[in-house]
């Protein structure tokens, strides 16, 4: 009898790919990529007696969203994408226009909503206001907006210049109690 030189038989691994695919798809479907990002705010401390804060009218930038999701900025009807420019103009006024803010440090944005205001609209406006501040700070630091956001989100990249910009243009947003229109 002739001895056959036998090589090890090849194992068919093509079904392994199918199994791995199945597992992969299972994980893709069942898991959610955690979204741990958002717009941060700091709530005012709880106070029992109403503090009477005296502020000049010219330093307050009033933004109001009613229960029909209409936007009123400084007594003017506006659309969402106009808010940013108006806010930037107001913050960086530096006392030129007597009706606008005296300095970025003094400028405060007051945001007021109705109980019936849609959350989506509120976030859209908050985002625009934040963008106004971020763009001003980015311009102050001499970087682009994208670069600024990167610096803000990475504590390793934060430097003296960032702290300076934060101090020169502080993010001051105050939220008033909502009015009752529109129900829950």
């Amino acid at each position, binding site marked *: 009898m002739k001895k056959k030189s036998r090589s090890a038989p090849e194992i068919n*691994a*093509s079904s*392994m*790919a199918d*199994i*791995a*695919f199945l*597992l*992969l798809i299972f*994980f*893709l479907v*069942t*898991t*959610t*990529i*955690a*979204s*741990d*990002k*958002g*717009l*941060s*705010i*700091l*709530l*005012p*401390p*709880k106070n029992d007696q109403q503090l009477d804060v005296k502020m000049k009218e010219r330093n307050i930038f009033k933004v109001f969203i009613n229960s029909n999701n209409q936007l009123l900025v400084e007594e003017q009807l506006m659309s969402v994408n106009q808010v940013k420019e108006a806010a930037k103009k107001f913050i960086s006024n530096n006392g030129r226009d007597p009706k606008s803010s005296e300095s970025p440090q003094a400028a405060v944005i007051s945001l007021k*909503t*109705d*109980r*019936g*205001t*849609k*959350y*989506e609209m*509120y*976030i*859209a406006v*908050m*985002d625009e206001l*934040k*963008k106004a501040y*971020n763009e001003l700070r980015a311009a102050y630091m001499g970087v682009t907006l994208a670069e600024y*956001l990167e610096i*803000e*989100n990475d*504590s390793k990249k934060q430097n003296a210049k960032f702290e300076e910009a934060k101090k020169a243009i502080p993010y001051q947003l105050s939220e008033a*109690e*909502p009015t009752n229109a*529109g*129900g*829950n």
Partner: protein
Amino acid sequence: MSKFSKKKKGTPAISTSSLPDIIFMLLFFFMVTTVLRETELKVQNRLPKASQLQKLEKKSLVSYIYIGKPKDTEKYGVEPRIQVNDALVTPKEIPNFVYAEKDKLDEVERDKITMSLKVDIDAKMGIISDVKQQLREADARKVNYSSVKAVEKE
């Protein structure tokens, strides 16, 4: 006549044995980068879009509050509700939840607790301001409105 017998030429089988390895690599990537859902959502949760996002720094200091229309509308109605952990609560119960969450943290880190509000885009501001009022009451003043990254229009 010919010395060389003609070899049978069939197309050689393509080795696919490295394919599973590639797929497994993808699989492990997804397994590592994703987190399993911690709580079963009882409310609808479509997050709003925003562009100026800030990262939440320390995961361990973050507690989540979900607000939205209940999924089980026959049992809970259609009005937006608040969910913490696995239960639907009224705004009045939020301070207790905050205190419980704070108790889990180290004493030095208690003031740094951040509440992440995951609110459905269809919710109204009324319920959110109620929640914010209660958070102030419980002295959890750092709040983050969770949202997803919007694509720039410009």
